[in-house]
């Protein structure tokens, strides 16, 4: 399979040399050192690996890097340019919506995408929108609270 030479990540064109069949997750983590995106299951079941591709949430563990050539990829590292936290990041801190924090990158990007599609979601809409994400520490009620708090504060990124 042809190799992919370039990836648009967090607003920057990054040079890579990766087999197109490799997962986006492994290229981000191993070739570009963007380790904020996490491996959790490898089968799209936990959403720890969530990134935004052209603004849409995607499971990078089951996305081939060949499928994202020419598309804009945003990872958790791209959400707070120049250290200014995204409102969803602020809200997660404020609500203490984490314990170990391993699911947090994926949760935050999932929440950013949810709020962009639905700026003021109800509890039920948050539950159905976020149900693909697993927080094994069980901070779900706090994540719901954080998403409500961030609602209406804009879904930039």
């Amino acid at each position: 399979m042809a190799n992919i030479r370039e990836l648009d990540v967090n607003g920057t064109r990054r040079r890579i040399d990766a087999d197109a069949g490799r997962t986006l997750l492994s290229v981000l983590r191993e070739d570009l050192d963007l380790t904020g995106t996490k491996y959790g299951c490898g089968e799209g079941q936990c959403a720890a690996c969530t990134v935004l591709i052209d603004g849409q949430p995607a499971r990078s563990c089951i996305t081939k890097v060949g499928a994202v050539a020419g598309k804009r990829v945003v990872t958790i590292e791209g959400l707070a340019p120049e250290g200014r936290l995204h409102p969803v990041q602020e809200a997660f801190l404020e609500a203490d919506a984490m314990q170990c924090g391993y699911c947090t990158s994926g949760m935050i990007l999932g929440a950013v995408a949810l709020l962009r599609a639905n700026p003021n979601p109800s509890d039920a809409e948050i539950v159905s929108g976020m149900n693909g994400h697993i927080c094994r520490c069980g901070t779900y009620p706090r994540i719901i609270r954080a998403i409500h708090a961030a609602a209406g504060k804009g879904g930039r990124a």
Partner: protein
Amino acid sequence: MRRRDFFAALGGGIAVLLAEDAGAQQGGRGGRGGQMPQDVGAWLHIGEDGVVTAYTGKVDVGQNSRTSLTAAVAEELRVPVASVRFIMGDTALTPFDGATAGSGTTPNMWPQIRRAAATAREMLLDLAAQKWNVDRSSISIANGKATSGSHTAGFGELTQGQKLIKTISSDVPLTPATEWKVAGTSVPKVAGREIVTGAHKYPSDTRRPGMLYGKILYPPQFGAKLASLDQSAAEAIPGVKVVHEILASPRGAFGSDVVGVAAPDSETASKAVAALRAEWTPAATQPSSSDVYSYFKQNAEGGPASGAGLITYTIAYLAHVPLEPRAAVAEWNEGKLTVWTGTQSPFGVRRELMEHFQLPEESVRVIMPDTGSGYGGKHQGDAALEAAILAKAAGRPVQRNWTREEEMTWAYFRPGAVIEVAGKANPDGAIAEWEFHNYNAGASALRTPYHVPNAREQFHQTKSPLRQGSYRCLAATANNFVRETYMDELARSIGMDPLAFRLKNASNDDRLRAVIQAAAERFGWANRKKTPNHGFGMAAGFEKGGHVATCAEISVTNGEVKVLRVVEAFECGAVVNPEHLRNQVEGAISMGLGGALFEHVEFAGGKISSNRLSRYRVPRFADMPAIESVLLDRKDLPSAGAGECPIIGIAPAVGNAILDATGQPVRSLPMAPQGLVRSAPGTV
């Protein structure tokens, strides 16, 4: 680095070492450059630049110990939280620690760190009094500065280039909880910003120059033995190094052969392992998840119990499912080994590595970055050992991150169990007879907290077909489930309300009564209204220094159980951090719901079939009830840990609510893996 070398490297300032056993030390006698005690539990250093660094062998796996310990230093040393740095779980830099386990950090390490900080504060007072020639009582310490009249100085200025080392005993007085200003408040998670920005480096995020990615070829079945291996196709892949090491004694179900690869990226490593052609000799017949319960009883040491009228419960094995699977990076440098790994026992992992490679203590360093959870499931050093074997053979650093399937197959499990119970309540509500047997799971919370004369309670050692180990609250979840659901059957047998029945029999435990009453009051137990297909249940217990009571409301629709509302009252002495405590309580309820309703490990023939998240259901957003926590803050009692005890109430509370809704007791965990209808327990 040896400890004494470390202190030589520290430079000027104050170092306080806390000896765990005052009797073995020259208690309280300060000294400069004195002998390093061997049983130091914690230490703290204030540099000439005023930087405060504290050291502990404890680790943070999400329970927020880094934050609580940092707050302890800030409290006693009167410095801002942000000015304290904590080195945790690094065998070269921190004092020895057995393990982060048993909810031990708060009752044990937290007061030690406070004593070290309090001593440093007193030393600073002495230095300031000497420097300014003023009375000690005229000096106040606040916000990282000492002040007396017109004099003021930062901590670093006070030490004046001296190196002061003091060894203290454990009887240093501490600031009482009623006077806390930082401790006891909701200090935010100290690493929070790194986490929400993706900057925090978990063990699996460790990167070293020239690092390769490793993978191990595991047997297709627990205990299968390697019969032949052809590694030529794997070796033909560019950049791949194949390793085959035969151990002197087998590594449990992994066997004696360590076969693995190191490759430039993880996917090439996976391809290389797939290209290894191995033949295996199958292991002997092994019990399955459906016949394991009779296996437990058949293999009980001393034979099974023979009491009359015993009712049988079954408890499934559970997987911890830490969202970050086991991970390690190993690096060799001139015969010395450094490993970064996610473990609750960095010193235990060091011991494993020392034994395997026949190395002295100072040649092995284990570093534990704050890790993607543990829940009692990350004590062994399997990934660390594999990374170190591969790195040694490859001559380069190697990362060995387990996949989800590997994590859910080759890690250890929370034990399954058979539990038998019998009892009798008098018409006035007093429990007259009580007999209780646990096979395999363990003795945690085996004894009833209720007042029962002549209770007969026994833990029966037996054989486990699966590798098993610690889990949040160990066997207390299983034992509390059976005891508390059977309590409701006893209450029913005499027509007594479950609340009144518990309060009557908890007459000897005021702390237990307090949480029961607090939960019932917030829940509105007295005013609950029975409607069709709805049920209400409660449960209580104590473990690891905490007391818990849980009330639940559920609905049952066509056998499907939905938990609607949960109120949990929790008391663990003086509250260290209210918001983080609530977070633990909520998280424990969430995790406990999984084991209560649907989580169970399925296995047969030495293979785990529930080895993925698509085959092993864990709680999700949609499973969450409305949760209210009620914290009883007992400032008159020492603080106890909270990572475990809050998990024990939810399963029996839900079980009792099902009994209330359906009239039928549920005698297995999980209670409703495919709904109640098909939840018949395995054969015993």
